[in-house]
């Protein structure tokens, strides 16, 4: 059963729980990456991501988003066709960025499905649409960083 079908049979509490779990998984992933990071800059970077996702978690409780950022430019899809890195304690930063970007993409699609589902409810529709856009912004930033470092001549 795909996500769209799942949502139809869920009640609001379950939906919120599902979203919070998604955000929590991201928080856990970035916390792990932060703790493994070998230098301060990347530790900071992952802490930023932890903070961003934590804000999302809070927003979900109130169906409100603060400091909404505008829709990013077209999805670069750089990591869409790359292999899923294996989550381990010896990941390279290249692998971590790919992993994170793919997560953002997956989460964005989840929120998009929810936005489409709640097309009849303006408040929920707007909220989930903004969440989807935020995740896409995260993905875009990660992929830009990836492109600058790992595809310098590619």
């Amino acid at each position, binding site marked *: 059963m795909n996500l769209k079908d799942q949502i139809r049979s869920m009640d609001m509490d379950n939906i919120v729980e599902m979203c919070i779990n998604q955000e929590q998984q991201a928080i856990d992933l970035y916390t792990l990456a932060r703790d493994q990071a070998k230098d301060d800059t990347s530790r900071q970077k992952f802490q930023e991501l932890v903070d961003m996702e934590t804000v999302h978690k809070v927003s979900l409780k109130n169906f409100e988003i603060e400091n909404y950022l505008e829709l990013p430019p077209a999805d670069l899809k750089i990591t869409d066709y790359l292999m899923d*890195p*294996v989550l*381990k304690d*010896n*990941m390279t930063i290249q*692998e971590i960025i790919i992993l994170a970007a793919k997560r953002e993409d997956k989460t964005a699609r989840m929120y998009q499905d929810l936005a489409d589902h709640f097309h009849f409810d303006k408040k929920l529709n707007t909220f989930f649409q903004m969440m989807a856009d935020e995740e896409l912004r995260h993905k875009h930033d990660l992929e830009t960083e990836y492109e600058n470092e790992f595809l310098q001549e590619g």
Partner: protein
Amino acid sequence: MYKIIKAEFIAPNVKSFILEAPHIAKKRQAGQFIILRVHDKGERIPITIADSNAEEGWINIIVQGLGKTSAHLNTLETGDSLQDLVGPLGLPTHIENWGTLVCMSGGVGTAEALPIAAAGKAAGNRVISIIGARNKDLIIAEDKMAEVVDEVRISTDDGSAGRHGLVTDVLQDLIDEGIKPDMIVAIGPLPMMAAVSNQTKEIGIPTMVSLNAIMVDGTGMCGACRATVGGKTVFVCVDGPEFDGHQVDFKELGSRQKMYKKQEEESHKCFLERQMKKMKAEQMKEEVSA
């Protein structure tokens, strides 16, 4: 530079070299390797360091002449010099007191397993060595191994010495006798390490293998030696050469090792033909002067 202090055959087509290498000898730890070139148009090949002596400034390598470069290397004698020698490369073997350590080795792998067995013993393990070879003539370093471990068991493919069978059969024998190894180190040809890893995965014994891969620079610069371990690409020269045998994609590594098979065979064939011509010419010279 890179002088051969002593060269001698220790088995058919298997030669032991003591090389003058004070810097390498000083830094070398068990499990590490060197890269060498035999002549000025030679290729760079990796060879595990079997032994070393820091005070006397030498390292020992054991070479089986299976390809052009190793065959050429095995024609060198005491007093000759190598073109290039660099090391020590790779990460040293991680040794701890696991309890019962079983070192399983095949062919030249036994010379490579020797320092690990010795270090394992020094760390407090009970060490059992299982040495496998095709026949009794190809068993190497048995005596040296016996000096450092608690027990040596032999297996030969043709039954000419020890148990008739493979090292995996001997391991099964040990287990049937009630001995439960805490750690296994397997060093030898790739199919042997793969077989051991499969066997131990099923019975749940941690296993370390020492991978051989094609290399060019040996310092992580080119990626020729990449392998997949645990779903992730690693460079054998800087992330290894030792890895968890249960995580290694042996199939992929096996096919990567064969990349230049055709060219290598051609090169080896030419070399052997040249050697034959040389030998014949020398024979004729002797006959003429006699």
